[in-house]
């Protein structure tokens, strides 16, 4: 068991257990906090995959913005201070079965791919991943078009969210 494998197993345990707590727990603010734990585990996983920039962007964007948005939304949309009643609807058994089937199906299909047990080679692009990533995002024959479209998408989301959430005086 190399140290990498031990770290990966610990991370995977954290992610899966936090994700299960997210979808099971009754108290919604606790669910949002378990989501923070799961997202942090995913960030550590990115670090293990030697994508350090992505790990930090995950923390900044997901934990620093999206998780806080979730906590605010949970606090602003509750009638009373306690959550009561079951948090899963009446189809939960079928949903659990469906989720298990999806997992089993995905695992089976993936395991029959011949690259399934590939081990890691050298870091693609050398050690200057940040430079390669930066150049790829702004060079015209690489990915500048999706980059610009993503920024327009963010602008549209910003305008839309402010417009929808502003209560119109009727």
């Amino acid at each position, binding site marked *: 068991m190399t*140290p990498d494998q031990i770290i990966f197993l610990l991370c995977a345990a954290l992610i899966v257990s936090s994700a299960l707590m997210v979808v099971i727990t009754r108290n919604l*603010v*606790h669910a949002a*906090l378990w989501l*923070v734990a799961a997202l942090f585990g995913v960030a550590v996983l990115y670090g293990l995959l030697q994508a*350090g*920039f992505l790990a*930090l*962007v995950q*923390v*900044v964007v997901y*934990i*620093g*913005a999206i*998780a*806080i948005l979730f*906590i*605010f939304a949970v*606090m602003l949309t509750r009638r009373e201070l306690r959550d009561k009643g079951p948090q899963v609807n009446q189809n939960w058994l079928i949903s659990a079965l469906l989720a298990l089937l999806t997992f089993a199906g995905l695992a089976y299909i993936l395991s029959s791919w011949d690259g399934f047990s590939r081990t890691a080679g050298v870091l693609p692009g050398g050690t200057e991943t*940040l430079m390669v990533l930066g150049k790829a995002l702004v060079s015209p024959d690489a990915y500048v078009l999706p980059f610009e479209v993503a920024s327009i998408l963010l602008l549209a989301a910003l305008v839309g969210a402010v417009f929808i959430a502003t209560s119109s005086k009727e």
Partner: protein
Amino acid sequence: MTFWNDPINFIAGWLRGVFMGWGLSTGPATVITSLIGIIVMILFAMLIAIALVWVERKVVARFQDRLGPNRIGPFGIFQPFADIVKLIIKEDITPAGADKAVFNMAPVISLASVILIWAIVPLASKIYGVDINVGVLYLVAVGAFGTLSVIMAGWASNNKYALIGAFRMVATMISYEIPMVVALLIPTIIAGTMSVKGITEAQGNLWFVILSPLGLLLFMISAIAELGRSPFDLNEAESEIVAGFHIEYTGMKFGLFYAGELLHAFTFGGFMAVLFFGGYGGFFGLEKFPAFAWLSNPFIELVVFLVKALIGYWIIMWVKYSMPRIRIDHMLTFNWKFLTPLAFVLLMMTALFDKLLAPTQFYVLGMFLSNLVLAWIVLEILRKYSKRERAEHEKNAEPVVQAAHH
């Protein structure tokens, strides 16, 4: 490699030798040595936090024309220890109906988010935790944890003043992250690297404060807002909402919040020094002469860094104890309508002039003058805007005066 030239590697090598002499293989020996190094770094940060309690109280006293603590020890230097003893022996109250797990975790995460920053602070050219190549982004990411701890504290206290304070603080912190990220990008563009040590090395000839004084101002304003200190401290204003999100915390849990806030302020003072004032360097090549070769000793660099960080911290304290509090809606308006557009214009201008003027010899002069021109334009716009507002105000105020006459 002696102790005086390269302290960390020397001690690490010695420790590793000791552990291997006890029979461990290289892997676990390195891991245990690294763990000891981490603990030493955390201890250093916490010792600085203890000293800062005394510094803060003496400085605020002098600003307010009084003496400050002077009974416990000469000049009151043992006051922090008295404070620690008081906080430990206080009763630990958890409010009824509070969410115990979240309530107890919030101060821990708040202090952890400050200590995590000390992993990348370059104390000297050979004394630092780790040199990651995205250090500047790490600073922003760790600030996100601080925001999370504030909202956890506010919600778990089961107290509406705590919740209001937490909402205000989180709104301020996430709003002022944007000018701070842009202000952090300015030294990144000039130095060409996001690594904090790389930015310090790039200032070997010229401090970035001369190349971009507006960047320093932007960083200072947004850092003070991120810290939640005056004049942006409506979130914990004692006269308004009674300490905001940490009302319900007593004893050592409050001590964790308090120490975390002081250490956070000092860390941002340190980052002001690192990003704009040359960090641990500062002799501008004097140490290349053989007579002055001792100036590049890591311990001298450590002292230089600490002095600069203390000066930065003193400026933050100076602002805190001289200015009145700003209202929350003024705070947010200031950010979204003034600081963010200014930050983006400054970023574009810095990038443009950096690219255009880099090969020529007008680099320093051009960058400095462009900053001055931008500052002058902004002041002119503000002057016209305030003149117009004042004229409207006086026009609307007249009927009130006439109505009072009869």
